[in-house]
């Protein structure tokens, strides 16, 4: 992971450099590598021996420094600023063979290009005005997400009907904030001469109220949306030997998890992706049983299970029927709190195992002829929770797409709230101006305006490689 080490400012300092990076996964018949920067033309000439670089497609052999050809790729040439980074770009579609890639890598280094930092292509695209920071972030979120619906990915790719509104929305909020600030300042600085001050301040109050609720709905829209970036996770928890791994295997329809009647068989978690009702995908995770660990390793496994459970979308709690047990299941307070929290959210499914009676939520996991029914029962239950937790909404309207943007919106919302309390008289009015200014700074920062370069670099350093 270079991203942690690389200084955020490097993105700016490296701008004169020519960078390259693999744009596709390696392994297929064709792999794509991109080169961007001032030396692109020189690199193209050196690789192909052809003197001219004009926008278009070429199909030529590429050679190493000794003139020995090592592949004949398809070469797409883009002349800046008509390219996605705004610089000269060469896209090399080469045969997906390791030795070809190694050769390319070596030659590009020799010719003075640098391997790209995470997100560096997107960074250049933003600094050259080909893309806004917000668009780049949305793209990054889309790349990293595995649970996007069609509508959501359209939204993140900027193809949704409302997508382009982001900067407009923020600019409008900013300009209204400026207006409010001007009114408040005028009421302070011209208090001798303004008669309609109370009316002015009242109008400020209602405007601030409105802006605050606008921002609030952007944040809650994002919360709903964020739930859709990733697959919902169902984590199976419960006391040992309850049959969690058996259930996991039943749901999967394969014997992925090791099963035995020994308590503590599952030491680490096992996960799999599966389709539940209506073809919706979820990630399902089997975890180590809750008990006093008998070894250090088991203890670690239980802890990992616990932290997975905390992050789960749905908790599936499985225990043996009380009747089967000599002594009842005892949960510690942390486990109780966990279950309570998920019950409160409506995201807790409780099942009992090894009951011979066909009662609801009680399965006999030992009879294969019932497996189909068990699967259906659990899948339906999961489907219901998902439907409840993720109401279908205007998915294409993705306005904010990152935690950074959300944190800044929170900051803006706080500024507006403070300003409101000043306008309402519970804080000195002259602070309202500063509160609003704070909100404006946050809103501008969302678009990457008025912030230091270090900050921008920081954002891109969290992006994945190759984009």
């Amino acid at each position, binding site marked *: 992971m270079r991203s942690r080490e690389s200084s955020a400012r490097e993105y700016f300092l490296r701008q004169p450099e020519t960078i390259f990076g693999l744009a596709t996964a390696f392994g297929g018949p064709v792999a794509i590598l991109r080169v961007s920067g001032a030396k692109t033309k020189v690199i193209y000439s050196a690789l192909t021996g052809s003197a001219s670089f004009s926008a278009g497609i070429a199909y030529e052999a590429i050679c190493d420094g000794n003139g020995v050809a090592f592949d004949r790729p398809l070469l797409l040439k883009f002349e800046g600023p008509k390219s996605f980074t705004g610089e000269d770009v060469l896209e090399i579609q080469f045969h997906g063979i390791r030795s070809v890639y190694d050769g390319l890598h070596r030659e590009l280094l020799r010719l003075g290009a640098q391997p790209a930092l995470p997100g560096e292509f997107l960074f250049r695209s933003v600094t050259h005005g080909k893309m806004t920071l917000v668009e780049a972030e949305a793209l990054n979120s889309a790349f990293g997400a595995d649970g996007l619906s069609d509508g959501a990915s359209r939204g993140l790719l900027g193809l949704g009907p409302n997508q382009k509104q982001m900067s407009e929305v923020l600019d409008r909020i900013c300009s209204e904030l400026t207006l409010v600030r001007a009114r408040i300042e005028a009421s302070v*600085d011209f208090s001798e001469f303004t*008669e309609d001050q109370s009316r002015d301040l009242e109008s400020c109050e209602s405007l601030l109220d409105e802006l605050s609720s606008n921002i609030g709905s952007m944040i809650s829209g994002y919360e709903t949306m964020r739930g859709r970036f990733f697959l919902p996770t169902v984590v199976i928890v419960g006391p040992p030997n309850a049959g969690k791994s058996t259930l996991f295997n039943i749901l999967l329809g394969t014997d992925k998890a090791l099963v035995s009647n020994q308590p503590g068989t599952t030491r680490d978690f096992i996960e799999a992706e599966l389709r539940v009702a209506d073809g919706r995908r979820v990630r399902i995770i089997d975890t180590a049983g809750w008990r006093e660990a008998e070894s250090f390793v088991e203890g670690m496994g239980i802890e990992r299970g616990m932290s997975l459970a905390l992050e789960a979308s749905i908790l599936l709690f499985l225990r043996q029927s009380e009747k089967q047990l000599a002594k009842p299941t005892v949960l510690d307070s942390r486990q109780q709190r966990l279950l309570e929290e998920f019950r409160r959210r409506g995201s807790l499914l409780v099942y009992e195992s090894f009951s011979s009676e066909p009662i609801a939520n009680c399965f006999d996991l030992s009879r294969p002829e019932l497996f189909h029914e068990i699967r259906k029962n659990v899948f339906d239950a999961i489907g219901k929770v998902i439907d409840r937790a993720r109401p279908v909404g205007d998915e294409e309207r993705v306005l904010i797409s990152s935690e950074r943007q959300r944190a800044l919106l929170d900051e803006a919302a706080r500024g507006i709230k403070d300003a409101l309390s000043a306008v309402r008289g519970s804080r000195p*009015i002259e602070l309202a101006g500063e509160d609003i200014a704070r909100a404006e700074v946050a809103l501008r920062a969302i678009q990457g305006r*008025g912030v230091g370069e270090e900050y921008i670099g920081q954002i891109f350093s969290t992006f994945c490689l190759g984009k």
Partner: protein
Amino acid sequence: MRSFDAIVVGGGHAGIEAARALAARGLQTALLTLDQSKVGAMSCNPAIGGVAKSHLVFEIDALGGIMGRAADRAAIQSRRLNLSRGPAVRATRVQCDKEIYSKTTSELLENFGTLCFLQGEVSDVITKNHSFAGVRLVDGSVIEARVGILSSGTFLRATMFVGADKKEGGRFGDRAANSLSSSIERLGHTLKRLKTGTPARLKAETIRFSQLEQQWGDPEKRRFSWRNEDSKLPQICCYMTHTNAKTHEVIRANFDKSPLFSGEIQGVGPRYCPSVEDKVRRFSQREKHQIFLEPEGLNVRSIYPNGLSTSLPSDVQLEFLRTIRGLESVELLRPGYAVEYDSIDPTSLSQSLMSKHVEGLFFAGQINRTSGYEEAAAQGLWAGLQAGKFLLNEAFEVCDRSRSFMETLVDDLVNVGTDEPYRLFTSRSEFRLLLREDNAAERMASLGLGSGLLSPEQANYLSERKRQRSSLREFGETERVRLDKDRVVSLLELLRRPENTWETLSADLSETYSDEVLESLEVEIKYEGYLHKQEVDREQLRAIRELRIPDNMDFSSVPGLSNEIVEIMTKKGPRNFDEASRLVGVTPAGLLALNSFLGKASVSRETIERSFS
């Protein structure tokens, strides 16, 4: 030929403070005016102070200046403004008897043995090797001095307009200074025409005051000066009335007669003090505008109708005035008029207000594109203070926005500049919670003492005030109050609560402590959290300012600095990182590159970047 250390040209509010600041340091100072009897004249409204402006007056007084003291002595009504709002924006406004005010300024100046009043009109600034050497008067005589302060207000090539009537002159009944303009231009300063205006003066006996709402001052008079002198004058009331649809109709029907609209006046006017015809045109939806009728003095029967500045012809002025309630049969003492005058570009001055073109030549006041008595006076004092240091070979005082509105004003003028008459607002300061009326004495103390501007009495007052403050704080911290049987808190803790004041907590404190000390400490306790935040910002600003950029720095030799930034920095010549960070086009990365080049690693990237937000 006469010779002085310094010559101040113009005896308005700027010139007065400049001359005082120089004379107070024992420098031989000439105050040259067109008409000595007009020193300290209040050419427009009869009041000193107002929001933000009063902050300047307190700061001027804290530096030993004249304005606050003269206003206190001439006060015929005093009001505190914004009392229902927070502490930073509370302000003081004092109505003055204009004659007494003007007379007092002369008297206070006459106390200084090193100050000499001269009368005459300057035709030329004389320089030697790009340094100020003196002035030549229109009669050909020469006055020599090493320092010149030009504070000629609205008099440079001034033209007055009343309707189509046009007359040379900077103020009703006065001449203009015509030859000085071209001399200043020759020295390298670009001139720009600005415009200002004033309303008609009304005969008091023709106004039906009984029909109008009265506005009295506060029973307890607030004083500007630490000397706390009472004017001992009777207190008067002002009156309120409004324009109405009829007034607007008359004005609208005569738009074509206003030199403002006919294109006759080219100069830009003060946006925040527009003429009444401008108000009627720009805010056509407003049904009325508020008018204050302010007496100009106790004995002069002249009323200043605040809010009715105009350059319409006299007969139109009379016609629209008479549509206003209370003014139905009003008569004019003299009509309102507009003045158009030359101003210089203040960005051609350094932070000391000294010309970048001529060493020893300073500019202060309305000539630098400001409006208002207080703004002028503050610049006068600042220029005088710096000119004194210049003459005595001391280093210039660094202009610190976080210390005073005076310096905020100067900093705005010389660094940002302005194309219209600049008026101060509290919102111009990013540190306004720290820049209050109540702590002006503390804020300016070290500057005043260090610059030799304070009398021994004022220095004593400051140390007494300091003693009182620490004693009061100690009392507040140690004095315990029992809330109930379990809880005992300090008096200061209790004071923090919104419902409490010193008065509600401990009635007899005002016998031991002055009102100013009580007020400022109360504010500091109540708003501690907010103040702390701004203090942190201030420290950051200071740290950035400490990062000096050497004179004649070759920016092109700094690796990693873009051509654009090299160009901007070379052109503007920032002296420290604070100035550099405020230049349009300069990025944090540029500053970081400069910082590493200069090898000063003491300020973190975060600090530099934060200075941009």
